[in-house]
Every structure is written in structure tokens, then in C-alpha cells.
């Protein structure tokens, strides 16, 4: 609950567009819109209500108990006196009342016996209390006792002879106790309110300090400084968790931005060259061609150049599509082994044509949840590379095996390889090692392989084959692919 709320609070804080467009408005945000104040107030109100309920029930049960005890003693007293009257008549009753009045045991006892005419027979009240009109009903009335004002709980009854008996208890002390309790509660409530406000201010400043890092960082990022990260407090609390999530997100954004930058640089540099070539050819032909054949061959070659450029575009778009991860939706269970055998068959002829030996070892079953077509293309790219760079008379190793829940597809050649310092950059778009500059190719092949591996939560690992390049695609099985029956690959 609190987490969720703090999330909401952060979001309100964060939208950079709003922050940039209306800085004044944000600064003068009314107090009630501060999430910190809201939490503090909610806390104070909940705390206050529960404290009040607790105190009130305490007060109510204490006062109620006292009241009930007084009522019980009055009732018992009244019954006892009535019995005295029934057994011994009026004299017995008078004696009993007298005893009770002189007995110091209950100093709060109030008695008054009037004859049918209203004259006082015995009792410690000066007169019949004003307002007491009905018998067998509880009254709490002010009385005058030995000339002293007081408050009493009273109950009157009419005796068979017409005499009226009033029994009661002085409750002034108890009423005072009740007032003290009530006052105490009111004070406590006020104090609680004050504490709530102080708490609100404290919590608010605490809260602001905690999200200040987040808001300053995100604001800096919104302004374009993508290197900023939210510092972690190291407490491992919810804010640390949030900081970590946001940092991960920023990391991903930075990577994507980097990719975009790479691609735009690549387009600026690497596509300019073939476009220039095509343009030059056409212009040259239009200016200097002497025959129709010249013209036609120039146009043909320029068309080929343009096809090459289109190919580069398509490869770039494909890599972007793969990196976006949307193709995961189309993953299905498939056995890679037959597909790899097909590729082997397709390339074996080419290898033989070039005087190379393709040494192939493919495990009988390689079940995977993935995109068969993309893996096909990735493997084909690696074989294309191996064929392109390997000298005749050597061997290319093509292996695929399932080891510890990971499918490893290895293609190792005996070509020039990639130098260790270039290996990390080899999967970047348009990267071409110095040794490969003069061969045909766009420099996108390995980038696509890496993207395909990444899409399947796997890796592309490039290593030295002493000599040559050993490229390994590792595709982890993720449980779901191990179902009993892999579906046959879809045709078409």
C-alpha cells in the first residue's frame, strides 16, 4: 500500500514535460498536493481516531461501571428498607434508616422518608428534591445536604401506607472524576492533533529527501544528460528498489539511444559510400558514355549498387525488428536438428566447390522454443562468413549439441580470425575488421547473429580457433521447450 502510494507520488513529481513547461506551478504546489503531507495527515488521522476510540471506550466503561455499581447498591438498599417496612412496620423502617445514617460505612448514602402529607419523618435531605415526580425511576438531581450543594442519584418508592421513601447516593465525587477524565481526553486529542501536524512536517521532509535523488536525476535525464544515475542509499529499502528499477530502465534507454546513434552514424558513413558509387557511375555514364552498351552496363552496375544499399537497409531493419523483441510473440516449439541438417546440405555443396571440407556434427534432437527462421538465418550468416574467409584446402567445423540445458551451435574456421581487440566490437553494426575491408559484405552479419542470440536469451561468443574464428551461439532452453513432442516446423 505504502509502496504503491509512493509510486504515485513519485510519478506526480516526475513527468519531465510538465516539469519543464511549468516550473513555477510546480514550485508553488499547495501543501495539500504534497504526497508527504498527505501521508502524514492520513497517518495522524488514523492514529488519532484509534486513540480516541480507545480512550472513549475506557472512559465509557469506567463511568458506566461506577454508575451501575451505584444503581445496584441503591436498589439493594431500597429493597432491604422495604422489607423492614413489611416485617416491622414504620418503626422498624425508621430504625433501619437511622442506623444507616449514623453508620459511617457509606457516607454518601441519602435517605428521606415522608408521610402521606409530605412531612419529613426521617432523612438526611433538607427537602424533597425539585423535579423528582415519579416513583421507581432513576433521577440524577442537585440536592442540598446539611446545607451543602451536591449531586445525587435518586430513586423514590411509595410504601403501602402512603409514605414516600427516597433512597440515593451522593455522586458528586464520581461526576468530578468523569469531568476530569473528559477534560483529559480533550487535551490529549488536542495534543494528538499538534503531534500529527509536527509528524506530517517531519514525514514530508523525510519523504522529499528520499525522492529528491530520484527527481533530480530524472529531471537531469529529461534535460538530456543520460549519464546520470540515481544513487542508492544502501539500506535495501523500497526506495533502493525503486532506484534500482529506474537505473535499469535508464540503462536500457541509454543502450537503445546508443544503438540509434550507431545506426545514424552508420547511415551517415557506411551508406554514403555505395550511394556515392552508384551516383558517380550514373553521372559518369550520362556524361561520358560513347555507346549504348556502355550506358546499359553502367546502369546495370548502378542498379546492383542500389540493390546492395537496399540489402543493407533490410538487414538494418531486420536487426532493429529483432532487437525490439516483438518477434518473441511468434516463438514456437521446434527441433533445430533437421533445419541445421538442411543448412549443412545447402552449404556443403558450396564448400566442396571451393575446395573446403565441412565437418559437421549435429545432435539428433535439439528442441527449442524460438524462431526457427531467425536461427536459420543466424547460422547461415556464420557459415557465409566462414566460407568467405577460409582458404581452400582447410576445414570448417559445424557442430550443434545440447549440453546442460544449452544448445550450442559452433562454427569454427581456419581463416584469418578476428583479433582479440576487435572481437568485442565485431558484433556492432557496420564494424569491419581491417583484414576484412577488401572483401564483400556489409558488416551487419555478426550484428544480426548477436541480435538473434539475444532475442532467445542467449549469447554469441567469438573466440580464437588457433588459427581462425570460432563463433558459438548459445541458446538456453527455458523449460517450456522440453515438451514431449516438438511441432514440425511450419512450411511457407
Amino acid at each position, binding site marked *: 500500500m505504502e509502496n504503491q502510494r509512493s509510486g504515485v507520488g513519485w510519478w506526480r513529481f516526475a513527468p519531465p514535460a510538465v516539469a519543464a513547461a511549468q516550473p513555477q506551478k510546480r514550485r508553488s504546489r499547495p501543501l495539500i498536493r504534497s504526497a508527504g503531507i498527505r501521508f502524514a495527515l492520513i497517518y495522524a488521522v488514523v492514529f488519532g481516531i484509534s486513540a480516541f476510540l480507545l480512550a472513549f471506550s475506557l472512559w465509557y466503561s469506567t463511568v458506566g461501571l461506577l454508575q451501575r455499581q451505584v444503581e445496584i447498591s441503591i436498589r439493594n438498599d431500597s429493597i432491604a428498607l422495604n422489607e423492614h417496612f413489611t416485617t416491622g412496620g414504620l418503626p422498624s423502617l425508621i430504625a433501619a434508616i437511622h442506623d444507616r445514617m449514623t453508620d459511617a460505612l457509606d457516607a454518601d448514602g441519602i435517605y428521606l422518608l415522608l408521610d402521606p402529607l409530605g412531612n419529613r419523618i426521617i432523612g438526611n435531605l433538607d427537602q424533597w428534591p425539585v423535579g423528582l415526580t415519579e416513583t421507581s425511576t432513576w433521577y440524577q438531581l442537585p440536592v442540598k445536604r446539611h446545607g451543602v450543594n451536591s449531586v445525587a442519584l435518586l430513586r423514590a418508592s411509595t410504601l403501602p401506607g402512603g409514605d414516600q421513601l427516597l433512597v440515593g447516593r451522593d455522586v458528586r465525587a464520581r461526576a468530578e472524576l468523569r469531568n476530569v477524565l473528559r477534560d483529559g481526553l480533550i487535551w490529549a486529542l488536542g495534543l494528538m492533533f499538534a503531534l500529527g501536524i509536527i509528524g506530517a512536517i517531519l514525514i514530508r521532509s523525510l519523504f522529499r529527501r528520499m525522492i529528491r535523488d530520484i527527481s533530480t536525476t530524472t529531471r537531469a535525464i529529461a534535460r538530456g544528460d543520460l549519464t546520470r544515475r540515481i544513487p542508492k542509499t544502501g539500506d535495501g529499502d523500497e526506495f533502493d528498489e525503486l532506484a534500482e528499477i529506474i537505473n535499469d530502465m535508464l540503462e536500457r534507454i541509454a543502450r537503445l539511444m546508443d544503438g540509434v546513434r550507431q545506426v545514424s552514424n552508420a547511415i551517415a558513413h557506411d551508406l554514403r559510400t555505395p550511394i556515392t558509387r552508384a551516383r558517380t557511375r550514373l553521372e559518369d555514364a550520362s556524361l561520358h558514355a560513347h555507346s549504348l552498351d556502355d550506358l546499359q552496363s553502367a546502369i546495370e552496375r548502378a542498379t546492383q549498387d542500389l540493390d546492395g544499399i537496399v540489402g543493407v537497409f533490410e538487414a538494418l*531493419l531486420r536487426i532493429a525488428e529483432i532487437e525490439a523483441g*516483438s518477434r518473441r510473440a511468434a516463438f514456437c516449439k521446434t527441433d533445430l536438428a533437421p533445419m541445421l541438417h538442411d543448412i549443412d546440405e545447402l552449404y556443403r555443396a558450396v564448400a566442396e566447390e571451393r575446395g573446403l571440407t565441412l565437418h559437421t556434427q549435429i545432435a539428433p534432437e535439439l528442441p527449442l522454443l524460438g524462431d526457427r*527462421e531467425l536461427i536459420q538465418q543466424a547460422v547461415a550468416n556464420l557459415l557465409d562468413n566462414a566460407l568467405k574467409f577460409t582458404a581452400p584446402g582447410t576445414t570448417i567445423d559445424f557442430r550443434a549439441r545440447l549440453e546442460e540445458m544449452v544448445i550450442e551451435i559452433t562454427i569454427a574456421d581456419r581463416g584469418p580470425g578476428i583479433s582479440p581487440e576487435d572481437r568485442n566490437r565485431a558484433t556492432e553494426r557496420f564494424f569491419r575488421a581491417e583484414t576484412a575491408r577488401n572483401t564483400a559484405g556489409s558488416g551487419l552479419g555478426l550484428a544480426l547473429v548477436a541480435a538473434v542470440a539475444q532475442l532467445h536469451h542467449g549469447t554469441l561468443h567469438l573466440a580464437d580457433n588457433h588459427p581462425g574464428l570460432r563463433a558459438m551461439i548459445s541458446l538456453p532452453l527455458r523449460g517450456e521447450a522440453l515438451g514431449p513432442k516438438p511441432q514440425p516446423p511450419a512450411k511457407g
Partner: protein
Amino acid sequence: MRILVVEDDKDVAGFVVKGLREAGHTVEHADNGRDGLFLAASENFDAIILDRMLPGGIDGLRLLETLRAQDNATPVVFLSALGQVDDRVKGLKAGGDDYLTKPFAFAELLARVEALTRRGKSDGPTTRLVVGDLEMDLLSRSVRRGTQRIDLQPREFRLLEYLMRHAGQVVTRTMLLEGVWDYHFDPQTNVIDVHVSRLRQKIDKPFDLPLLHTVRNAGYMLKAEEV
């Protein structure tokens, strides 16, 4: 053949129409979806070349869906700038028979359109294919040329079968990759050329008259006469 071209770009449409006419086809052209649908529904065509993004309120997909809903089974080739895998799948799902992404080579488009119309005609099950003196028995999976029996690897057999089914037509490398190997991308290596030349070694080398011809800038063609 009678072909309908529904394409709004004037240059592309002009180029395609001209090329198809030069190849000996009768061509109608519509430059928006509404006219295209009207023509396609009211007249008989052997094939339709259909752009996906069209003006006139009806795009290529809608047009094709409407057409298929009327039980019109005219073969349709999509010719679209939308080239992602999803786009392709959508086009084929809507009832398209083939999907070609712009920019395209005219030879590729022509080869695919002609291949489609041929496919439409021979719906019944064929058990025997013949080109010149080359015979293929699909049941016993055997190939003979004249009196001589030719041994082929399974893949070579499928390659030859594809070529024979499209005998007399240009077959591009991409079509072979898709039709024989089920590949939907272009390898950088000339894999197809190598396989075709191996096949040629077996079916043409020992004989006087070559059947398997290379068509420059386009692909291959299996044909009994000279190209």
C-alpha cells in the same frame, strides 16, 4: 495473360505495366483501391498485382479480403513497401498468394506472377512431369533423360521438380530458396548457383541439347528449346 495492376505510384505502375506488356501480357491498371476492386470483381484476370497502401478508402488488404469473400480465387501478388515479417504474414493470411517487397527487380515480379498463374492452372495431382526428353516420375521418384536413368539426391530431385513444374518460365534464385529450401532471406554466398550447376552436371552435361538455361540478371529456366 490478363493481368490487373493496382498501384498508385505513377512511375512504378508505368514501369510494371510497360514491362508486363513487353512480356506479352494484357494489362489493366487502377490507381486506387475503389477502382481496383471494381475491376477485379467485374472482370476476369489471370493475376492481380496489388499494392497494399492505396488511396480511395480501400487499401490492398481490404480489397483482397472483399474479393476473397466473393469467392474470387484470382492469384494475387502483393507488391508493398511494408516489408516486415508481420506485414508479409498479414498479406498471405488475407489471401495473397505471394508477397514481394519494394524495391523490387522487375524480373523477380514477372517470374513470380507467371509462376502463380501456372500454379493456378494445374490443380489436379500430377504424377509425371515432362520437359523435352527429360521425364520425372513423381510416384517412383525417378528421373530419365531419353533412355538414360539419372540418379539424383533428394534435394536435387526437389530442385528439378520445382524447375520442371515451372518449365518455360524464369525462376529466380529467391524463388528457389523459398520453394526448395524454405529460406526467406538471401544468403551472401551463391549457394543456389552451386546447386543448380551441380544439377546441370547431371541432367545436361552428358547430352547435346541443354535444358537448364541461365537467364541473365534474373535466374534460371528449364526449357526444351533455345532461350
